């Protein structure tokens, strides 16, 4: 467990040398990569310096027993042990987060491969529907076991990605594989699964990843239990303030969802101008702006402007 001391020690050092400003909060992510449920259910993990791969292993779904919560799986045991130890070492000085467990087809794709899954949706739709149900069933066994370790004294919790926190159970949900699905397939296979999952959570952010996922916005916004939308324009794409994204944001606001927006294009003056535009359009109550670490002079300028200009603003956007 020396590695846990290193992880926590390094994070303490980062906290001691970083001003945590605005609504951000120090949170330690102890993650085994995106979609670790796939590893708990049988994937081997290939570790690389900056990423991980979950190795597909399903040749035929008929050979794989129904998914069950397996507390003896070697990756799960290791993961929960590391999270427990880090939480002890953190001593409540900063927030620990729920790992990026992931759900529905994204878990199955790690096990089966994306190309195989495309055909599985056509060849064996009933089997895939059943497998998605099984992933949903075990999700909360895993989620709750981590939640019990990392929850704050008031039972609030934070999730490993997007720096999100909220009272009760908090999670980011997604279906990156949806980029390869038709709108009807998304409704048939994924929509209800997300709805069922979101019903058991208190705070839900949906991560919409990439241009090919935009076609599912209407189906997603029908899920009442999703509280907020986070849109990623693609690898190294423009940030979340681009006017082209209004079509997505308008649909989210029309459905009463909040918006999580990452701001990084341009300089601090561009960030202020772009956020100002969004605040004027959507109002200040439904927006969360996320900024990467920046020089203190930029942070002061930004916060000063935000405090003076972005409080209690009602936006112009109307449904």
């Amino acid at each position, binding site marked *: 467990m020396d590695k846990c001391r290193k992880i926590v020690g390094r994070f303490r050092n980062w906290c001691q040398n970083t001003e945590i400003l605005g609504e951000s909060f120090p949170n330690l992510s102890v993650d085994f990569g995106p979609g670790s449920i796939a590893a708990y259910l049988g994937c081997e993990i290939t570790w690389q310096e900056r990423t991980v791969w979950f190795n597909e292993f399903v040749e035929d779904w008929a050979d794989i027993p129904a998914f069950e919560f397996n507390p003896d799986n070697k990756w799960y045991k290791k993961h929960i042990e590391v999270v427990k130890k880090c939480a002890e070492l953190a001593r409540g000085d900063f927030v620990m987060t729920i790992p990026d467990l992931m759900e529905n087809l994204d878990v199955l794709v790690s096990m089966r491969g994306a*190309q195989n899954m495309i*055909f599985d949706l*056509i*060849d064996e739709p009933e089997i895939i529907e059943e497998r998605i149900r099984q992933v949903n069933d075990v999700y909360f066994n895993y989620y709750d076991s981590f939640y019990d370790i990392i929850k704050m004294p008031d039972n609030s919790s934070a999730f490993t990605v997007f720096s999100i926190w909220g009272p009760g159970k908090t999670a980011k949900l997604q279906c990156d594989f949806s980029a390869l699905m038709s709108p009807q397939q998304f409704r048939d296979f994924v929509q209800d699964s997300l709805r069922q999952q979101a019903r058991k959570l208190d705070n839900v952010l949906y991560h919409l990843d990439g241009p090919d996922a935009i076609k599912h916005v209407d189906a997603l916004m029908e899920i009442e239990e999703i509280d907020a939308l986070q849109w990623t324009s693609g690898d190294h794409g423009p940030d979340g303030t681009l006017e082209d994204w209004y079509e997505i944001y308008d649909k989210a606001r029309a459905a009463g969802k909040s918006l999580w927006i990452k701001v990084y294009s341009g300089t601090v003056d561009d960030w202020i101008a772009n956020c100002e535009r969004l605040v004027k359009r959507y109002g200040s109550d439904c927006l969360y702006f996320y900024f990467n670490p920046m020089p203190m002079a930029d942070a002061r300028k930004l916060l000063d402007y935000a405090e003076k200009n972005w409080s209690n603003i009602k936006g112009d956007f109307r449904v």
Partner: protein
Amino acid sequence: MNKKVTILLSRTGENHKKRILFGLKRIRQTLVQNGYELYQETLPENFAEYRNIEGEKIYVGIAEQDSFIAWLEENELLIYHSTKPGYEGMYLETIPARLTLVVGGDETGALYGLLELIDRIDEEGEIPREIAYSDAPVMKL
């Protein structure tokens, strides 16, 4: 005047494959969206009588597995202007009596062929009047 098209199905179930049926479901939606009135018929026992089915027709089959495709090849009604479709490949051709053929090298190729035809119908607003087109994946992932 309504546009009419008949989807032809194999009498022996040779083209009743999951990926083909999926593609047919998609092309039916596309045809309706583009103003077609849809009909479905089983191929006549005597293949030559396909000509007697009125109006435009679409048939999907797999090369080397489908007896109607084989009959069309034998009778030189279906002539591949490039290579015969192989692994995941497809060939689309308009043949006499207003029949648009989608020939797959296998089930997946037939699906790709249907998706290609769907794109063309969406682009042109109608089934291409004259088509002879082949394609296949450059590499297997």
